[in-house]
């Protein structure tokens, strides 16, 4: 067996050499034979004649010897050549089939690759299914208590995304960082690529500051991971020693270049982890002990939260149910988070599209084999074996799917990069996405299976028809069962198109609603940059002077209408949420109402409200009279006023941040009430907002928002700030428009994909319907001729086919609407302002599809009336 295979392979390689050698061998034979004859005394001519006769003719023998060398590969090659000829001879069929395959395989592969990379592929951490994400639902410092009390976990680590300013050679540079607890990498199971990760000793108060670097950062800044270890980085005024480099591609939630220890950070910024108040939200990741389920861990955490609620009623009594305060989910769920529904919907849509493409391909192949029934029959009649026929068809379709697969992979790569470009930069695991070869092979296999099933089964059936039958039946076309199959195909197409189009309709409807939402400010023509005044060289007084200078300097730029500074970027929202108390109300009063007054705290310049065009409801905006030394003031949004002073005039109220038991900052007088602002995103409800003058509460990092009359580039703003002080780092330039687009990108992706696929699905369905009716008309030409000869009118003939089409269309749409309603739940978190079963959208979709498909029925039906009865009868 092996020897045979080897000989076959060698035969292939040696083909050309052997062809020549066969001739040489036979010539040698002839000469020997001639010599033998001559030695027996025959004449030269006679010897030659005899030798050639014995050999059976030189050319024939060469030919038959060479034929022995032909292998199965030659047979296949002959079939492939024939298949290529068949495909070339029917270009319309081939082009349509290829389009279907390319589209089906391409888009499915691209989108399923994304969905797989984001949703399914395990997270890049050791034993990742034991990792869970832990957070407090309401902000208080329970982290240390969790660590002490919880028994479900091998370890709990905390981390915070942050950024630091690194003193570079020219301008200071912003570096994305993450502050992590000492055990963070241990919990994730990460091992260093170079150097070491954090030890307990690094977290001691007297330890020298250390940093762990990302692989990309190490390469970028120091040339290699090896060179990076031991380097000193000056960041936010402190010198850190790089102790290690992470493996390439390491990422936790967000990309970060520098990992610093959380413990010293918290001690410096938040009066220690033990402070239960005014604590920044800390998110934890924990590794479950082997065998402990998320459910068991959740139960334990709720018990702990309940106990903490009793021990610290002032801070841990979030609401009536203290167990509410812990949020624990598998880490993978958290990381995928918001994108999961979008991806599920998009992947669902694409599977439907692949289905429709396959169904269409099936219809196409059914038609094709119906029209080739005669060819198959004749081939069978003249002795072609069944296997010959099946092999021929297999090769034809394999060729089709192969070309479709290759082109589909190219299309898939293009679609993939287009979609990744569309995705928001914050999209989880974006960097892990690539065209998945496994997915590509699966979609190709599905198409293959579909092609074989619908292309070969009818052909085999046709081939079993006896030759005589074919001759008698000659040209009468498809059988009844094939017609029924084609109708089923048409019905399925309409149903799938209905589902996709309903989804598209709901998303378009949502986007229209979203565009109509009043965010509470005017988001157009706002350019933003962020700058940071960090380090000991920036005392509050100097910051305050610098704020004013920036506002004045930028206002002088051409095209600038107004300038504001703020700590909360609209759409991104404030990350400073505080509880405040009001003079004259006791803690007991608020506990009895169930909620302490609270709001997102936003520090702003006086020009902020004018710049963003947030309307004044009552009182006044901040103005030039509000200075570092004047009386502390505050402005609240209308919903704060409604919620916490329902029966009083909020103007003139005294408020102070913090719980009554642990207040901080001075008492402030409410001087104004402004309109509600959807600060956290247009699709979120407006949250309570508390505004304070940034001049009274200076901050290191502030956003600059510039309202422009004409386009003002971010770089000119940056240059203007650097004019004032070239050591200030400026970064994150974006327009508010961009932010709004980013914030709605989940919906936009769903809308674009569903709409594009919906349109394609409708087109495919229309083509399918057209094909079925046209085929029916073609098959019934003779009947039509007879009917018309007997006096049927054009209207009656049309009616014959329209009625037939109408029934299938109606059933198809009904099935589709049913399926759309069943699938609607998957859109629930994506729609905005409409219900997923919105009757208006569904009826519009049904109406549109009815019109399109009936039009597709009408066109071939009309052509039926143009049949010339005489010709139709004669053509039989």
């Amino acid at each position, binding site marked *: 067996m092996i*020897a045979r295979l080897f000989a076959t392979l060698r035969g292939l390689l040696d083909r050309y050499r052997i062809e020549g050698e066969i001739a040489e*061998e*036979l010539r*040698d034979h002839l000469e020997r034979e001639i010599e033998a004859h001559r030695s027996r005394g025959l004449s030269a001519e006679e010897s030659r004649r005899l030798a050639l006769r014995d050999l059976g003719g030189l050319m024939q023998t060469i030919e038959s010897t060479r034929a022995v060398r032909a292998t199965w590969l030659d047979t296949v090659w002959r079939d492939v050549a024939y298949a290529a000829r068949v495909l070339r001879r029917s270009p319309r069929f081939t082009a349509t089939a290829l389009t279907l395959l390319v589209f089906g395989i391409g888009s499915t592969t691209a989108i399923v690759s994304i969905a797989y990379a984001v949703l399914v592929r395990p997270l890049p951490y050791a034993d990742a299914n034991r990792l869970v994400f832990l957070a407090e639902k309401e902000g208080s410092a329970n982290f240390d208590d969790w660590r002490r009390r919880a028994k479900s976990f091998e370890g709990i680590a905390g981390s915070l995304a942050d950024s630091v300013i690194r003193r570079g050679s020219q301008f200071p540079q912003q570096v994305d960082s993450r502050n992590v607890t000492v055990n963070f990498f241990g919990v994730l199971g990460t091992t260093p690529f170079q150097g070491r990760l954090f030890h307990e000793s690094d977290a001691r108060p007297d330890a020298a500051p250390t940093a762990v670097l990302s692989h990309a950062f190490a390469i970028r800044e120091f040339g290699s991971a090896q060179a990076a270890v031991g380097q000193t980085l000056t960041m936010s005024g402190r010198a850190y020693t790089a102790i290690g480099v992470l493996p390439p591609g390491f990422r936790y939630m967000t990309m970060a270049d520098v990992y610093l220890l959380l413990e010293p950070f918290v001690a410096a910024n938040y009066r220690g982890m033990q402070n239960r108040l005014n604590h920044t939200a800390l998110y934890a990741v924990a590794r479950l002990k082997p065998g402990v389920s998320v459910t068991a861990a959740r139960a334990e955490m709720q018990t702990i939260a309940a106990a903490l609620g009793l021990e610290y009623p002032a801070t841990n009594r979030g609401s009536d149910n203290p167990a509410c305060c812990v949020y624990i989910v598998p880490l993978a769920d958290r990381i995928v988070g918001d994108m999961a529904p979008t991806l599920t919907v998009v992947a669902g849509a694409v599977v439907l599209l692949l289905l429709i493409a396959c169904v269409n391909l099936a219809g196409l192949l059914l038609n094709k084999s119906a029209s080739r029934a005669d060819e198959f029959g004749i081939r069978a009649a003249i002795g072609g074996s069944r296997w010959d026929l099946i092999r021929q068809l297999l090769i034809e379709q394999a060729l089709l799917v192969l070309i479709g697969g290759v082109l589909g992979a190219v299309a898939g790569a293009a679609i993939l990069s287009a979609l990744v470009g569309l995705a928001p930069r914050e999209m989880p695991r974006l960097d892990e996405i690539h065209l998945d070869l496994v997915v590509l092979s699966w979609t190709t296999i599905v198409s293959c299976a579909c092609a074989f099933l619908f292309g070969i089964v009818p052909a085999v059936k046709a081939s079993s028809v006896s030759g005589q039958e074919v001759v008698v039946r000659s040209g009468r076309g498809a059988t009844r069962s094939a017609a029924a199959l084609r109708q089923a195909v048409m019905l399925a197409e309409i149903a799938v198109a209905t589902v996709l189009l309903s989804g598209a309709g709901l998303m378009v409807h949502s986007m229209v609603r979203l565009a109509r939402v009043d965010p509470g400010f005017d988001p157009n023509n706002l350019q933003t940059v962020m700058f940071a005044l960090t380090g000991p060289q920036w005392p509050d007084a100097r910051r305050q002077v610098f704020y004013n200078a920036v506002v004045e300097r930028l206002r002088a730029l051409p095209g600038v209408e107004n300038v504001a500074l703020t700590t909360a970027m609209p759409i991104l929202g404030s990350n400073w949420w505080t509880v405040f108390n009001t003079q004259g109300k006791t803690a007991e009063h608020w506990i009895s109402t169930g909620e302490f007054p609270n709001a997102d705290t936003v520090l702003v310049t006086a020009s902020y409200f004018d710049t963003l065009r947030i309307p004044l409801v009552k009182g006044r905006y901040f103005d030039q009279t509000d200075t570092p030394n004047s009386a502390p003031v505050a402005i609240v949004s209308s919903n704060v006023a409604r919620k916490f002073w329902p029966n009083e005039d909020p103007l003139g109220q005294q408020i102070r941040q913090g719980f009554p038991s642990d207040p901080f900052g001075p008492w402030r007088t409410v001087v104004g009430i402004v309109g509600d602002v959807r600060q956290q995103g247009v699709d979120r409800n407006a949250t309570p907002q508390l505004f304070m003058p940034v001049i009274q509460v200076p901050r290191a990092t502030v956003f600059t928002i510039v309202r422009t009359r004409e386009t003002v580039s971010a770089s000119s703003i940056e240059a203007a700030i650097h004019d004032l002080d070239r050591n200030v780092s400026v970064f994150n330039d974006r327009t508010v428009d961009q932010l709004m687009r980013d914030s709605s990108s989940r919906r936009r992706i769903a809308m674009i994909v569903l709409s594009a696929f919906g349109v394609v699905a409708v087109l495919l369905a229309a083509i399918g319907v057209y094909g079925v009716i046209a085929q029916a008309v073609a098959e019934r030409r003779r009947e039509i001729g007879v009917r018309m000869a007997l006096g049927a009118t054009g209207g009656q003939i049309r009616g014959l086919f329209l009625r037939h089409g109408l029934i299938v269309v109606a059933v198809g749409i009904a099935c589709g609407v049913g399926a759309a309603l069943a699938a609607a739940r998957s859109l629930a978190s994506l729609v905005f302002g409409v219900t997923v079963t919105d009757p208006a959208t569904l009826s519009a979709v049904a109406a549109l599809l009815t019109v399109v498909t009936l039009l597709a029925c009408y066109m071939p039906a009309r052509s039926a009336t143009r049949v010339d009865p005489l010709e139709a009868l004669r053509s039989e």
Partner: protein
Amino acid sequence: MNKTQLLQGTLDLLILRILELGPNHGWGISSRLQQISQEGLKTSQGSLYPALHRLEMRGEVRSEMTASENNRRARVYTITRAGRKRLNQETETWEAFALSMRRVLEEGQ
């Protein structure tokens, strides 16, 4: 016509048998066959070469172009292990067959 037509399938066996005696080229095999069978068996040379190449494709003989006398190149065939194995099998089969034939024919006399 006293030269027996070869029974189908026996050509391979004969070729292998002759090659077992030693490597040979096509013409040599053909003339050796006539010689040994005392002109009783004569193969059509038109089917000899396809059979030789078929045997080579099956790995039962291998061949080599070698320089031969008077400046020509001849393809010389050598039997392989697989060829010997087949020869033994087929020889047994053939002998069993021939024995059965003879028994029936002699019994019938």
